[in-house]
């Protein structure tokens, strides 16, 4: 059986999702008879324009150069998989999209803003090209990435469950921080995959895995309000790591402008 040709590409991001692989190099080595890394700059393989079976993409599109690069990459990849909140939903840096003019932020930080080549917004990969599989999370979980590689090497469509963090808490028998402690937990509307780390630590989930498949943000907003959170604080809960993901963006903007 021919080895699966895989590439890993970085766009606007913190590098943390590539660590899903770089923190598991022994496992990467065990894949050697089935998987060939064609381009993965941080691991030492540089060939960004090579045709591949699977391209993993970390990061959002936020510069004109990245827009060109993602379109080229799509042509070269049979299957394109986004890893993490930046690639899948635009990332925390998409907060600048909410400004009337994102360039003002550039001008506030850089002495010569003209040198900074940035698009007006930071967007998910799917805004520009078709994406075959979206793995959520900030950061994405190693197990998700490896199981996707295994499945794709076998020619099977990877599973990508969309249930909420609440489901994980129930399975793990965690004490509910929202019900028992009145913490403004995003778990009811957040996709599972992290292992419910925050509730396990007694803290409210902050939504870093993005929206689950069925989001009832109206009910959760009411619940947050009944806990004493004002409109601004509620908006910040939704407009955080995954601020540009549809259901979170809607809920956040709705909270900001109460009727």
């Amino acid at each position, binding site marked *: 059986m021919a080895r699966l040709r895989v590439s890993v590409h*970085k*766009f*606007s991001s*913190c*590098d*943390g*999702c*590539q*660590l899903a692989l*770089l*923190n598991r*190099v*022994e496992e*990467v*080595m065990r894949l*050697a008879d089935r998987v060939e*890394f064609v381009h993965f*700059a*941080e*691991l*030492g*393989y*540089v*060939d*960004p*324009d*090579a045709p591949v079976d699977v391209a993993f993409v970390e990061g959002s599109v*936020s*510069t004109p*150069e990245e827009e060109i690069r993602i379109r080229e990459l799509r042509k070269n990849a049979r299957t394109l998989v986004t890893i993490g909140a930046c690639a899948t939903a635009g*990332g*925390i*840096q998409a*907060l*600048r999209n909410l400004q009337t003019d*994102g360039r003002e932020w*550039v001008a*506030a*930080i*850089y*002495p*010569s*803003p003209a*040198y*900074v*080549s*940035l698009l007006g917004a930071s967007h998910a990969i799917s805004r520009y090209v078709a994406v075959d599989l979206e793995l959520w999370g*900030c*950061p994405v979980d190693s197990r998700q990435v490896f199981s996707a590689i295994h499945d794709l090497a076998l020619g099977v469509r990877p599973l990508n469950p969309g249930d909420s963090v609440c489901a994980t808490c129930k399975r793990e028998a965690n004490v509910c921080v929202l019900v028992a402690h009145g913490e403004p937990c995003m778990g009811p509307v957040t996709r599972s995959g*992290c292992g419910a*780390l*925050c509730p*396990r*630590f*007694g*803290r409210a989930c*902050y939504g870093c895995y993005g929206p689950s498949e069925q989001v009832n943000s109206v009910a959760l907003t009411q619940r947050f309000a009944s806990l004493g959170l004002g409109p601004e604080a509620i908006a*910040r809960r939704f407009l*955080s*790591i995954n601020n540009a993901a549809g259901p979170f963006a809607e809920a956040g903007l709705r909270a900001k402008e109460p009727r």
Partner: protein
Amino acid sequence: MSRKRRRRPVRRTRRAMREISVKVPLLARVEGEGALALTVRDGVIEALQLRIFEPPRLFEKLLEGRSFEEVPDIVARICGICPVAYQMSACHAIEGILGVAPGPWVRRMRRLFYCGEWIESHSLHIHLLAAPDFLGYPSALELAKEHPAIVRRGLALQGLGNDIIRLLGGRSVHPVGARIGGFYHAPDEASVRALRARLDQAAEDAKALVSWTASLPLPATEQVFECVSLRHPDEYPMNEGRIVSNRGLDIAAADFEAEFQERQAAYSTALQCLHRGKPYLVGPLARLNLNADRLPSSVAEHARASGIAFPSYNPFHSVIARAVEIHCAIVEAAALLEGYAVPEQPFAVPSPRPGVGFGCTEAPRGILWHRYELDSAGRVVRARIVPPTSQNQARIEEDLRTELAALGADSTDEALKLRAEAVIRNYDPCISCATHFLNLEVARS
């Protein structure tokens, strides 16, 4: 020089008369995306640019208006490799404003948290990014085929570092355990015992690693540069201390802006942090050069026995300094876990008040400086963050000029390229971090 071969499709080599131009369009084995452009005319380096084309994500602006409680989770996202450093600098700066004193348990656990990050980040750098250079392999996977035990030992240390972070943070990338005032959760005693049981073997592995790095065929060179790091009255510096240098600097974190300025270099559009107009070094070699007397005695003894004397002004000794710091962090972690007990509450409760605060801690790559201004509701009014890589950027370029001139600018393009890449990687530049402050034109052709 008459070479015009293409080793890899992305590497281009051009030669016009007596002018050579070496371009490395995408640096391999560094964190983030950077490139190098070098022009040599008549055997003299005419232009040298370390280009960073990571797009800025403008964190300083997106922090504005956020509550102080959110800051540790937001700044972690600046860097996937050193999120703990960002969380710690932010916690210290904000606690300074709010007047929170988290107490000795939190202080110990924060140091342990930091030990985990040093072990993880340094092990990753030594084995996956740097070592292939010194032994002549394109990647760690090839290195592992011929030196499996070396790579396996390195990966085990990296895994240990990640597990220490996980103990306190739940996960090693963007951990969720840290909060202003301390930690959300205290590890139970059984988990602590299980971790402690691994540290004696790890310390032996780290010793072997120190000896191994000291035996690597590192280029022999000596350069003149200023080293800047924190210094603590009785500890090897991580979370606390004054900012000092080998040229007499000795200031509090609050005085950073009076001594250090960021400036834009016209040729590359890079924002570089300079100390009174001059390049300087931060990171493991600078720390060790200034704090060798603060190492635990077993670590200092073994470092001496390795045959490399610190202070050292050979930048390539950074890889040994990293190994010594891994050893130091493991010995420290063991000491920090002695007599561990679960506290009644693992955090002090902060309440908002306005003010300005500063935090400076030792990220794996060097001092990471934060400044925050909060309003009376505890919301961020203004933030400024100076990461280690923007501080090292000018020093990297200075080192490249020195090393490439010493190698002989008339060396083959391939030799120049390999040495240049090795020099850059040796600093372990964290380009994702640096880019929130560096603005570089996208010059990809």
